[in-house]
């Protein structure tokens, strides 16, 4: 490989709300990939016989599962709402600099509130 510096040059760029919203979208998406096998295992266990339903439900109540459900839930709320924001941007809605900044902060705030609410319910 060559010695060229790779973009993005994080040491040079100033962090701003839009960039944070974008990288958190990517990070939450990566976390949600882990949620797929979790979802499939859950689905398989919950639709099995009565014993398998009970054991899946009790496994779901364990502290580790609750933490995982909280992480997945918070990531899902963020990825979902910011995904709607990205779809709006693709349609040309809210492309002004002020709107971009404000909507990025709004999505992060919504996910923050959702994370607190989910923590109160689950943890």
């Amino acid at each position, binding site marked *: 490989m060559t010695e060229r510096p790779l973009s993005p040059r994080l040491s040079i760029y100033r962090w701003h709300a839009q960039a944070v919203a974008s990288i958190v979208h990517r990070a939450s*998406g990566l976390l949600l990939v882990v949620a797929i096998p979790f979802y499939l295992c*859950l689905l398989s266990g919950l*639709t099995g016989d009565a014993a398998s339903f009970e054991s899946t439900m009790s496994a779901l109540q364990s502290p580790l599962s609750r933490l995982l459900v909280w992480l997945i839930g918070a990531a899902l709320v963020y990825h979902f709402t910011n995904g709607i924001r990205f779809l709006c941007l693709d349609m040309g809605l809210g492309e002004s600099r002020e709107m971009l900044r404000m909507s990025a902060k709004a999505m992060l705030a919504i996910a923050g509130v959702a994370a607190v609410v989910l923590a109160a319910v689950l943890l």
Partner: protein
Amino acid sequence: MKEDYLGAAGNGFNDWLWQRASAVILLLTLPFPFILVLCLLGGCLDQAEFLNLVVHPFAKAAHSLLLFAMLTHAYLGLKLIMEDYVPALALRLSLLLATLAVALGAGAWALAMIWSW
């Protein structure tokens, strides 16, 4: 003739479009399992009621669509991340093929499960 299998703006557009199309499907379908899991955790749904909901033919069809969109969206998202952060071509292509194989396998397994109910 446009050689779009080579171009950055050619076949990349397919990925872009599928990522959006699957996003819209997920936007419409994903709230249902999310709410169902919360209901199960909250204890307001027992197994018989839960099974009644998921075995309905419409639910099975919507569930199949959801899983297709979920795996497509995840594969394309991982592809994007690999293209950005894994510069070594051989490693990137190997990871990409492994991801595709896992996604296809998971999809086949999940569809077989849903339609066996």
